[in-house]
């Protein structure tokens, strides 16, 4: 009858039988138990980690991840670093973009980048697709002239001799096409003599050897290398060079210095491909999205956009996500509330019936679970549409004129009705399992104490069924907040949810970053609501049975 479990007095640390401090001994014993428990849950833990936590982490990551721009255009983004965003960037930026996009096109990555940038800048998609094809025109000017001078410029081996380390070259020549290709190494000094060309050749070599697995000695360099060579020759003097292929290189140098050598500036080359390259917009977009991580997706998700001047609200006629978030929350609440209203009496009856009839009724409650979601939703269409069953009955009864049939589908009403029906079991089941644990003796006790039926229900029964309502509401609310099939089918334009846009961005527009940002916000909203629920009602007040 007392709760005195020992006074606070102490007399030194307690020792276990073997002399170790009792606390330590206890901790060891408990650790063993914990380890064993951990081993038991390990499979589930792994499963949850892999199938649940990892995708969520991936989603969070995707919503800010933006490495594609700097990965695909490393030189360009570096060059644009000191551009002020006014007018056009320097020629160096065009040059960097030429080499970047050229390589990206060889890797077939430029169109992906175009798709990515098209989310931010309309037209980027076709701009990059065209540029992938068009950039060859610039390089071919130089390639053709060098070839005309000496056919060796269009051969693989002379280039390898010019650029490659002799040791590497002999190894490469001895390579039997089996096993790993000897990695290309630049010859000593060539990087000083031909900085751009050697850089581009090294990139070319890496690509051929590692990505395509072609024998480097069979592949003549692509035209970007010729362009780079031209730049080095125009800038430097080859007369002092005496290494391999010196004669060939010096002849090319002479050609480049001669007045009849045809050149084309990168800027003109880009203009040739598409005049949009001479608009600052695309450059600004590239610069804006050059960091590895971006807040752009999140800003998009709340109807804002990233601009060079910071975050800005989108124009009115493009705002949609905040509206959809609000609508999703509002309708989920309405659906949850309708489920409580409809489900409570059913759960009450179920929990008060004898086992046999309760089981039969339970089957009726669960029946919708065993029908495909699409079938159920389509059935509501048949019921609610203007030429549907309910309207027909109303017209037949004379309650509604034939030419003023009610619109009950393809709007919010239709979504609420169909989703309430679909989610009702999720409300009834937890309510039922909580109600069936409330002993009848409470009700009897209340009545014996003089309470009327209503007082008994309201003061004694209802408070004890609240945990069931809580559990059901959380289930229904969270399920409905993420629903998209039903709203898509019966929601029309006013009954669709944010999840419909997420699904659209996942499967149609492929803007997974935006979808991830929207999903992350939705997750955050759910967590905040959960937290608020815990504060207001208390999460201990939720039980599933």
């Amino acid at each position, binding site marked *: *009858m007392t709760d005195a479990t020992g006074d606070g007095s102490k007399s030194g640390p307690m020792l276990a039988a073997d002399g170790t401090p009792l606390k330590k001994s206890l901790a060891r014993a408990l650790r063993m138990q914990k380890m064993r428990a951990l081993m038991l849950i390990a499979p589930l833990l792994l499963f949850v980690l892999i199938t649940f936590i990892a995708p969520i982490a991936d989603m969070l990551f995707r919503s800010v991840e933006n490495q594609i721009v700097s990965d695909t255009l490393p030189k360009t983004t570096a060059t644009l670093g000191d551009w002020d965003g006014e007018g056009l960037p320097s020629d160096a930026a065009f040059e960097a973009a030429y080499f970047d996009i050229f390589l990206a096109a060889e890797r077939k990555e430029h169109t992906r980048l175009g798709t990515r940038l098209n989310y931010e800048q309309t037209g980027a998609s076709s701009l990059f697709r065209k540029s992938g094809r068009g950039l060859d025109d610039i390089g071919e000017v130089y390639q053709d002239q060098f070839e005309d001078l000496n056919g060796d410029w269009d051969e693989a081996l002379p280039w390898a001799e010019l650029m490659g380390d002799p040791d590497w070259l002999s190894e490469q020549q001895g390579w039997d096409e089996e096993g790993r290709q000897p990695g290309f190494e630049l010859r000593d000094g060539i990087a000083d003599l031909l900085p751009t060309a050697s850089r581009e050749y090294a990139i070319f070599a890496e690509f051929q050897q590692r990505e395509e697995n072609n024998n480097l000695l069979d592949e003549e360099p692509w035209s970007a290398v010729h362009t780079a060579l031209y730049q080095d020759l125009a800038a430097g003097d080859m007369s002092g060079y005496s290494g391999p292929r010196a004669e060939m290189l010096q002849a090319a140098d002479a050609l480049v210095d001669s007045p009849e050598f045809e050149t084309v500036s990168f800027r003109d080359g880009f203009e040739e491909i598409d005049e949009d390259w001479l608009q600052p917009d695309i450059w600004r977009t590239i610069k804006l999205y050059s960091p590895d991580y971006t807040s752009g997706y999140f800003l998009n998700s709340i109807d804002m956009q990233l601009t060079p001047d910071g975050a800005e609200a989108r124009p009115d006629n493009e705002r949609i996500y905040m509206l959809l978030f609000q609508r999703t929350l509002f309708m989920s609440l309405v659906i949850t509330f309708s489920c409580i209203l409809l489900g409570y009496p059913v759960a009450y009856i179920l929990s008060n019936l004898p086992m046999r009839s309760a089981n039969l009724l339970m089957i009726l409650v669960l029946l919708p679970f065993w029908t495909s979601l699409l079938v159920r939703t389509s059935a509501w269409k048949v019921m609610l549409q203007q030429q549907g069953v309910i309207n027909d009955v109303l017209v037949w009864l004379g309650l509604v004129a034939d030419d003023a049939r009610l619109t009950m589908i393809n709007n919010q009403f239709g979504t609420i009705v169909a989703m309430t029906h679909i989610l009702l079991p999720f409300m009834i089941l937890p309510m039922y399992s909580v109600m069936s644990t409330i*002993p009848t*003796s*409470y009700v*009897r*006790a*209340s*009545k*014996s*104490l*003089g*309470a*009327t*039926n209503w*007082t*008994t229900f309201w*003061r*004694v029964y209802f*408070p*004890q069924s609240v945990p069931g309502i809580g559990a059901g509401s959380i289930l229904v609310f969270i399920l409905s907040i993420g629903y998209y099939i039903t709203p898509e089918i019966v929601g029309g334009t006013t009954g669709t949810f944010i999840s419909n846009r997420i699904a659209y961005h996942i499967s149609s527009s492929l803007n997974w970053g935006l979808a991830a940002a929207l999903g992350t916000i939705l997750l955050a909203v759910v967590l905040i609501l959960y937290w608020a629920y815990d504060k207001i009602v208390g999460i201990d007040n939720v039980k599933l049975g």
Partner: protein
Amino acid sequence: MPDTGTSDAFVAFERVQKSYDGETLVVKDLNLTMPKGEFLTMLGPSGSGKTTCLMMLAGFETATYGEIKLDGVSINNIPPHKRGIGMVFQNYALFPHMTIAENLSFPLEVRKIGKSDREAKVKRALDMVEMGAFGGRRPAQLSGGQQQRVALARALVFEPELVLMDEPLGALDKQLREKMQFEITDLAHKLGITVVYVTHDQTEALTMSDRVAVFNDGRIQQLAPPDELYEAPQNSFVAQFIGENNTLEGVITEIKGDTCTVKLDGGEMIDAQPVNVTEVGERTRVSIRPERVEVNKDRLQEGAHTLKAKVLEFIYMGDIFRTRLSVAGNDEFVIKTRNAPDQVRLKPGEEIEIGWLPQDCRALDAL
């Protein structure tokens, strides 16, 4: 104490029957009256109909036939919350979402009693069960015994004249149960309330009640004060159900006034007191309480008759010795002897003679 008329009866069952399925009766023709202030216990095995009777009285079950009267008025059609009967439930049924004080305040609130009045009554009721310090706690924070006290206080706080208790001590350990038995009877007598108490524990029934109604098979088998019930059971069921009992089966060979002769199945002839046997040749069960059997020849009183017995088992139980014997073909014949300095301790296998007085030996129905 036979039931005489219903004029001064506070509680009355008149020819009450109850059936749940329309095929079998769980309560068969129940007639019972109780005066005000009585502590009556309904005792019986589970399924005997005792709880159903209690629930009909509380109003949670309706009588299929017959009338239940409270203070002379039929309450058959009065809903439970208007009957004004206090009730203590087996699992206490304290509302888990309310504090102790709120639990007690609840019956007063629904009776629209003013706040200050309410608080005074709640305090008084809690003090009465020595739980005054626990008003702010929740039921789950209390021990079983504490909950029991609170449940009792709640049933009494609105000052009902009749309180029903449905096996209220079933969930408590033995020591606590004995303490509470005393407290409940004490409180009931102090307050002068009428109590109907349901239990299947015969000790509880015997120690607490003014009268005990032994239920079996939907009928009251015997309604009597505890001593009468123990010493003068009216039939084999009561004899068997109340206390420990030895039975010897046989046939009546002769009835002479208040004695009869029984020929046991083993051939021995014994005298007994005829209780509910009427004819010669009728089968009977002879009932002898274990403590009325004497093993010491010297102490046998005059008129006692003796039988041969063989010791099967000897159990030392501290204050008493419990010895199992084989008597007249019955291997479950038990005797209890007091642990006195001169008492013999029998050994298994020993052949002895036992004896008892014919008036301690009751010839009952053969069931």
